[in-house]
C-alpha cells in the first residue's frame, strides 16, 4: 500500500477525490460527520443543466466507493478532533478517538446553504408559502409541489441572490449556481403546471457555463417564464395567505407588486459552519472577504492550503457547481499525488 | 352520315347539359362580379378595348398563352407540350366538332350537346373523303389530348421527369377536378371506339373499335356503349361543376386576365376586381415553387406564392397573411409565373387590408427641429438628460450655395458604416459638393412602412423626407440603399431632382472622369439586390463599374435570376433562422466557383452575407473606394 490520506467530508468532492486517489493506489480514510455519504447532493432531485436525477449520480458514486473498499475506508458519524504534525506526515485524531496516521489531509467539507431567515424582509420562517430552493427541491423529490394549504400554485416567483451579493448579510460574493438553479426549477414548475405564471426576479443572469444559456432561452421561449430584473425588496402576506412581493422592474424603472402563491428563495452558499474551527485546527487561512478557505493561489496551487500537507477541494474554497466540484476534487487528487511523489 | 335517333336525345346528355349550363351561368355571374368591383375608369377601358384594334392582339395573346401556352414552352418544353396538348387539343376538338356538325347535321347546331356526343347520335352510312378527314382530325386531336393527359399523370408521379424539383400539392377539390379531367378524354376515346362500328371513326377510335369488334363476336354484346357515353357525360359534368372550385377556373379567368391586362387595367391597392381575376387565374402549375427561396432555401413550402393565392382564394386569411408576412417580395415568383399573376402585389394588398389600424402614426417629432429635440424617457427625467443630449444636436451644412448632390445613406447603411465612409471619400475625391442628409440618423424613407402594407404611415414619412431633400436645393439625390432608392425613384415626387443609386452615380463619375480607379487582382461576383435589380431594373451599371476594379466572374444567378439574400425588409414574419438559411444557401450557390469577394450594392445584402462569413463581402462603393486613384498618387506612376 502507498501513502495514506484523510479526506474530511463525504460529499461529492470528498467521494470523487477518494475515488481518484484510490485509483492511484493510495489508502483513503473518508471522514463523514453524518451517517451517510452524499452531502447536499443527497437532498437534490434533479441536476442542471439537463435534469439528470441526482439519485443516479449519487448511487453511482457511492457504489464506486463501496467497490473500492480495499482502498477507501469510510468513517461515518465522525468529525476531526485535532491534527498533529509528525516527523513524517500527520496524525489525525477523530471525535470517536480513532487516530489516523496520514501523509496528507484533504478538506472537502463543502458549504452550508444560506439561512434564509436572515433576510427578514423575505419572511422565511414566518410566511408559510415562502420556501427556499432546497425546500422546493425536497418537494420535487417527494413529488408533492403544492402550497401550504394543499392548493396547486398558480403563480410562483423565484428570487435570485438570496444571501448572495448582499452586504447586509456580509455575503458580497456570487454563489454561482443560484441563477441556473432558479431557471431549472422555474422550468420544472412549468413542466408540472403549464398554466402557472412563473416569475424570476434576478439582478444579473449568470448563465456562465455550458448549456446554461440554452436553458435560459428555453425557459423564456418554450416555457414562457417571466424574467424581471429587480431585487426583491419586501414580502408580506395577504389576508388569504398569499405572498405579496414588491420589487422594482429596473428595466422599466417602475416599482412593481405581485401576489404569488409560492415564493422560492434561491439561497446561496456560505462557508460551512465548521470552517473557522477547521481553520484553527489545521492552521488554514480563511478569506476575510467571503469566509471560505484561502488556497495558495487561484491558478497552479488552487487546491493547496497554506499549511503543508493540507489540501482543499470543492465548495469549501468558494461556491462551485457540481461539475466544477467534481473536477476540483480530481484536481485535488492530482495535487496530492504530485505532493506525495515529488 | 345519318342520324341514328329521330329525337336526337338520350338521357346521358343530361349530366353534361347540367354542367354546361352551370358553367355558362357561372361565367356570366363571375364576369359581372369582377366588372362591378372595377373602378369606373377600368370599366370604361374594358368596353373601349373591345372596339379597338388592340382586340386582335388580345385574341392573339389569348391564343398563345391560354391555348398554346407559349410562355410555359419557353421555360420548359415538355411542360409546355403537356399544357398546350391538352388545352389546344381540346379546343380543336371543340372547333372541328362544330364544323363537323355544320357539314353533317346543320339542323342540330342549336343543340349544345350534339357536337360532344356526335359519334353516338350519327351513324356512318358510307365512307366519304370529307368524313375521313374529319375522322382523322378528330382522332388526331384526341390523341394529342390523350398524350397530354398521360404526361400530366406522369408529372404527378415523377416530377423530375419534367425537370421540376417541386410541384403543387393538391387538395380534394383540385383532385376531383383533375381526376374528372383525366377521365374525360379516355372515356370519350372508349365511348367513340365502342361506337365506331356504328358511327365509324378514325385511325384511333376505329382502330381500337376493331379490336373491340373482335371481342364482340364472341360475346356479341354492345352493352358497353351506352355506359361509356354515360361515364363520359358524367366526367364532363363533374369537371364543369367543380370548375369554379378547382384550379381549372384558370381556363376561363386567364383569358379574362389577358383581356383586362391588354385593356390597360392594373393592380390597385386592394385585392378585388383585377386582383381577383389574377387569383383565379393561378393554375397552380407550380412553376413559382422552384424559384422561391423560401421553398428552396428554408423549407417553407407552405409560404410559396402558389399556396398564398390558394389561401386567399379560399378565404384562409390567417394563412394567407402569414405567407404574406414571410414573403421576401424578391419578385422571383412573379417573374416565373406563366400567367403573370403579381402575387407580390397581392400580398402587399393583403397586408394593407390587414393593417387598417386607424391608429394614428405620430411623426410630428420628425418636424424640422427634430434633431435638436432632447432624448426623453419620461417627463421628469427629460430635464435631466437634456443636458447630455444638447451636445448631440446636429449641425446641418445647409450653406449658402446649394450642394451638387444630396446623399441619403439610409437607415440600413448606418449599420454598414463602410458604405457611408466610402461614399464620402468618393465624393471628396471627385470634388463633388454634397450634403449628407442623414449623417446623424435620418427619417426612414417610408418603403419599409409601405412593404408592411402601411401606406398612410409611409406617406407621412415621405412627406417629411421630400421636404428635407428639396430644402437642400441639390439637383441630384444619391442613395446607398436600394430600398430607399426604389421608393425615392418610383413613389416620391421630387421635382427637378435626379434620383440615383450609388451604383449608377459611381458609373457616371467614372465615365465623366471625375474619379479614376485601378483594376485590382481580386476576383469577384456581383450579387444583384432584389430592390435594385428586379424591382428597379439596375443590372448593367454595377457591372460596368465592377469591370474596372476587379476580375468579375459570372454565375447562373445574375440579373433577373439573381437570388435574394433572405433579409428582405418585407418579410417581417420570417424567423431569423430561416432568413439565415436562405442567405447561406444563396451565398453557397453564388460561390460554387470560389472567388475572393462577393460584391453587392445593398447594405442589407451585405450584412446578410457578411453574417454567414464564408467569403469576403463588399459593397460596390467600398470596392471602388479601395481602388480609387487619388490625384496626388498619380504623378508617382
Amino acid at each position, binding site marked *: 500500500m502507498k501513502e495514506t490520506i484523510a479526506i474530511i467530508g463525504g460529499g461529492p468532492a470528498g467521494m470523487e477525490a477518494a475515488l481518484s486517489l484510490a485509483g492511484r493506489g493510495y489508502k483513503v480514510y473518508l471522514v463523514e460527520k453524518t451517517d451517510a455519504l452524499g452531502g447536499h447532493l443527497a437532498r437534490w432531485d434533479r441536476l442542471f443543466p439537463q435534469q439528470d436525477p441526482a439519485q443516479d449520480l449519487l448511487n453511482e458514486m457511492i457504489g464506486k466507493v463501496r467497490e473500492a473498499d480495499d482502498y477507501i475506508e469510510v468513517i461515518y458519524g465522525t468529525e476531526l478532533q485535532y491534527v498533529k504534525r509528525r516527523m513524517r506526515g500527520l496524525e489525525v485524531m477523530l471525535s470517536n478517538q480513532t487516530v489516523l496516521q496520514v501523509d496528507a489531509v484533504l478538506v472537502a467539507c463543502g458549504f452550508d446553504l444560506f439561512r434564509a*431567515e436572515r433576510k*427578514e*424582509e423575505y*419572511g*422565511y*420562517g*414566518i*410566511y*408559510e408559502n415562502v420556501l427556499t430552493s432546497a425546500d422546493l427541491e425536497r418537494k420535487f423529490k417527494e413529488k408533492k409541489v403544492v402550497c401550504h394549504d394543499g392548493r396547486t400554485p398558480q403563480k410562483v416567483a423565484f428570487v435570485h441572490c438570496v444571501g448572495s451579493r448582499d452586504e447586509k448579510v456580509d455575503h458580497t460574493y456570487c454563489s454561482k449556481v443560484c441563477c441556473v438553479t432558479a431557471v431549472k426549477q422555474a422550468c420544472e414548475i412549468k413542466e408540472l403546471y403549464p398554466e402557472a405564471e412563473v416569475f424570476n426576479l434576478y439582478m444579473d443572469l449568470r448563465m456562465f457555463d455550458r448549456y446554461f444559456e440554452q436553458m435560459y432561452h428555453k425557459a423564456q421561449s418554450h416555457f414562457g417564464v417571466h424574467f424581471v430584473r429587480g431585487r426583491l425588496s*419586501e414580502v*408580506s*402576506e*395577504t*389576508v388569504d395567505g398569499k405572498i*405579496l412581493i414588491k420589487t422594482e422592474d429596473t428595466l422599466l424603472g417602475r416599482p412593481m407588486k405581485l401576489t404569488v402563491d409560492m415564493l422560492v428563495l434561491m439561497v446561496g452558499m456560505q462557508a460551512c459552519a465548521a470552517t473557522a474551527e477547521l481553520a484553527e485546527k489545521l492552521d488554514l487561512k480563511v478569506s476575510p472577504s467571503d469566509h471560505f478557505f484561502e488556497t495558495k493561489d487561484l491558478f497552479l496551487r488552487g487546491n493547496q492550503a497554506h499549511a503543508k500537507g493540507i489540501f482543499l477541494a470543492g465548495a469549501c474554497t468558494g461556491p462551485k457547481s457540481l461539475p466544477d466540484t467534481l473536477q476540483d476534487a480530481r484536481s485535488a487528487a492530482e495535487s496530492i499525488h504530485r505532493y506525495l511523489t515529488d | 352520315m345519318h342520324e341514328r335517333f329521330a329525337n336526337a336525345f338520350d338521357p346521358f346528355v343530361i349530366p353534361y347539359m347540367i354542367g354546361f349550363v352551370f358553367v355558362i351561368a357561372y361565367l356570366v355571374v363571375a364576369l359581372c362580379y369582377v366588372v362591378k368591383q372595377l373602378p369606373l375608369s377600368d370599366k370604361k377601358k374594358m368596353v373601349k378595348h373591345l372596339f379597338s384594334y388592340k382586340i386582335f392582339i388580345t385574341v392573339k395573346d389569348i391564343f398563345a398563352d391560354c391555348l398554346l401556352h407559349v410562355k410555359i414552352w419557353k421555360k420548359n418544353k415538355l411542360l409546355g407540350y403537356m399544357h398546350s396538348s391538352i388545352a389546344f387539343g381540346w379546343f380543336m376538338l371543340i372547333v372541328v366538332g362544330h364544323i363537323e356538325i355544320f357539314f353533317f347535321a346543320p339542323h342540330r347546331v342549336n343543340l349544345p350537346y350534339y357536337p360532344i356526343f356526335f359519334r353516338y347520335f350519327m351513324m356512318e352510312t358510307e365512307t366519304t373523303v370529307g368524313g375521313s378527314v374529319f375522322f382523322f382530325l378528330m382522332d388526331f386531336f384526341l390523341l394529342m389530348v390523350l398524350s397530354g393527359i398521360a404526361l400530366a399523370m406522369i408529372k404527378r408521379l415523377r416530377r423530375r421527369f419534367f425537370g421540376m424539383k417541386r410541384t403543387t400539392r393538391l387538395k380534394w377539390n383540385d383532385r376531383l377536378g383533375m381526376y374528372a379531367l383525366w377521365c374525360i378524354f379516355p372515356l370519350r376515346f372508349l365511348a367513340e371506339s365502342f361506337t365506331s362500328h356504328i358511327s365509324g371513326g378514325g385511325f384511333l377510335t376505329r382502330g381500337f373499335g376493331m379490336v373491340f369488334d373482335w371481342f364482340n363476336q364472341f360475346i356479341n354484346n354492345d352493352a358497353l356503349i351506352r355506359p361509356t357515353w354515360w361515364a363520359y357525360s358524367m366526367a364532363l359534368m363533374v369537371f364543369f361543376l367543380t370548375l369554379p372550385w378547382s384550379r381549372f377556373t384558370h381556363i376561363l379567368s386567364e383569358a379574362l386576365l389577358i383581356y383586362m391586362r391588354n385593356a390597360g387595367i392594373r393592380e390597385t391597392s386592394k385585392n378585388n376586381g383585377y386582383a381577383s381575376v389574377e387569383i383565379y387565374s393561378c393554375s397552380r402549375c407550380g412553376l413559382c415553387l422552384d424559384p422561391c427561396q423560401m421553398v428552396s432555401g428554408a423549407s417553407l413550402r407552405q409560404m410559396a406564392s402558389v399556396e398564398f393565392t390558394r389561401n386567399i382564394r379560399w378565404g384562409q386569411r390567417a394563412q394567407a397573411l402569414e405567407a404574406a408576412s414571410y414573403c421576401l417580395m424578391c419578385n422571383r415568383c412573379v417573374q416565373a409565373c406563366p400567367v403573370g399573376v403579381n402575387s407580390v402585389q397581392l400580398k402587399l394588398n393583403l397586408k394593407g387590408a390587414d393593417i387598417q389600424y386607424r391608429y394614428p402614426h405620430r411623426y410630428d417629432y420628425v418636424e424640422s427641429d427634430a434633431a435638436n429635440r432632447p432624448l426623453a424617457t419620461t417627463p421628469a427625467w427629460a430635464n435631466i438628460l437634456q443636458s447630455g443630449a444638447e451636445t448631440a444636436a446636429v449641425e446641418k451644412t445647409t450653406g449658402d450655395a446649394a450642394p451638387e448632390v444630396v446623399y441619403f445613406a439610409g437607415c440600413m447603411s448606418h449599420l454598414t458604416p463602410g458604405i457611408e465612409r466610402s461614399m464620402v471619400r468618393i465624393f471628396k475625391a471627385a470634388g463633388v459638393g454634397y450634403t449628407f442628409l442623414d449623417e446623424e440618423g435620418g427619417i426612414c424613407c417610408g418603403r419599409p412602412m409601405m412593404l408592411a402594407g402601411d401606406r398612410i404611415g409611409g406617406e407621412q414619412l415621405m412627406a417629411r423626407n421630400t421636404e428635407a431633400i428639396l430644402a437642400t436645393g441639390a439637383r441630384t439625390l444619391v442613395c446607398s440603399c436600394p430600398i430607399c432608392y426604389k421608393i425615392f425613384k418610383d413613389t416620391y415626387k421630387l421635382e427637378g431632382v435626379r434620383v440615383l443609386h450609388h451604383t449608377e452615380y459611381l458609373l457616371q463619375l467614372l465615365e465623366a472622369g471625375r474619379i479614376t480607379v485601378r483594376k485590382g487582382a481580386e476576383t469577384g461576383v456581383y450579387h444583384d439586390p432584389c430592390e435594385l435589380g428586379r424591382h428597379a431594373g439596375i443590372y448593367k451599371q454595377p457591372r460596368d463599374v465592377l469591370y474596372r476594379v476587379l476580375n468579375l466572374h459570372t454565375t447562373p444567378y445574375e440579373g433577373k435570376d439573381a437570388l435574394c439574400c433572405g433579409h428582405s425588409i418585407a418579410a417581417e414574419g420570417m424567423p431569423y433562422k430561416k432568413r439565415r438559411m436562405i442567405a447561406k444557401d444563396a451565398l453557397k450557390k453564388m460561390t460554387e466557383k470560389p472567388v475572393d469577394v462577393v460584391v453587392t450594392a445593398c447594405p442589407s445584402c451585405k450584412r446578410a452575407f457578411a453574417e454567414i462569413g464564408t467569403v469576403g463581402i463588399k459593397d460596390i462603393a467600398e470596392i471602388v473606394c479601395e481602388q480609387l486613384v487619388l490625384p496626388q498618387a498619380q504623378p508617382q506612376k
Partner: protein
Amino acid sequence: MKLEGKKLIWKDYQKEIPDDKYFYVRSCIRQNMFPASEHYFLKIMREDLGKDVFETEHHTTCGGIGYHCDVIKIETIMAIVARQFALMTEAGYKNYAVSCITSFGLYTEIIHTWQTFPEVLAKTRRQLKEATGREFEIPEHVAHASDIIFKLRNEIAAKAKYKLINKKTGEPLKVVEHIGCHYAKMFPHKGVGGAEYPYVLAGMIEAWGGEIVDYPERRHCCGFGFRQYFVKPNRGYSLSNTHKKFESMEPFKPDMIITNCPGCPMFMDRWQYVIAETEGKTYGENHHGIPVFTYEEVAGLVLGYDPWDLGLQVHQIGPEPVLDKIGIPYDPEAKYKGAAGQDIGKPELPENICCC
C-alpha cells in the same frame, strides 16, 4: 403565519433599555396635537411606576423637521442636539428619553455619525462651545419613550384595569401597529425587534391582551414626507400613502391602530377623514373610521384613565367604538368640555364619516 419565526427574529434585536432616571425631551408635533399623551407618559412613569423622569423648560425642538425639510444644515442640527445633551449633562442624567421618532432617529444617526467620523464630533463640540459656551456628554442610552413603555409593559399590565379584549365576544382586539419610519429603518438594532418586525408596540399589545394584525403595507410610511405635507400642493403624496395603507389593512378588519410616532397618528387619523370626505370611503364598522391611538393613550386606557383626560377628543376619528368594545365607561357629554367642565363649544360633525 408562524409567530415562532418572528420570535426568532426578535431575539436578534434585544435593546438595552434602562428602566429609570431619564432626561425627557418633547416632540414638536405631539406637543401641538397630543399634549395629553406626553403628560400621561410622565404621569404613568412617575406616579404609576415611580420612575425618575426629568424635564427642563430650556430644551427646545431638535430641529428635525426643519432638517428633514432641508432648510437646516446638518452641522446646525448636530449642534442643537448637542445642546440638548448638554442640558442633560448639566442636569446630571445619562439616559435620554425621546418623545419624538424623528428626533429619536436623528439622535441615533448623529451619534452614529459622531462615532464614525470623530472629526465631526470635534467640530460639533467646537461649534456648540462657540455658540453657547456649553459642553456635553453623549448619553449612555438613548431610548424612545415607547421603548420605555415596552420595557415596563408587564408592570403596566399588572396594574391594568382593562384588557384589549372585546368584552362581548371575549376575542382579543385586532390591533394594527404603526411604527414611525425613523424608529428602526435606519438603524435596525436601535429599535426593539428590528426594522422588519418591530416588537416595540407588538409587545405592548400582546401584554395588554390584544392581537397584532400583520397586513402587507404594515411597514410603510404614513406618507408624512415632511415637505410633502407641509407644502400644500404636495399633500396628495401624504394622503395617497396613508390611503394605500388603509386599503391594505381593510380586509383584516382591525379594531384600532396604535402608533409610536408624532405625525403618524395625526395623519392616519386625519387622512381617514379626508378620504371619507373626498372619496366617501370609511374603513371602520358602520361608517366609523378606525381609531388611531398613541401608545400612551392605550396605556392610559388599560390603566383606567378617563378617555377625555387622555385627550381622545382631539382625534378626528372618534374612539368610542373601541371604548365600547373594551367596555371602558365614558361620558359623551364631557367629551368637549373645558378643564372645569365648562362649555367651550364643540366641533362640527363631518358629513361622510361617523365620528362619535
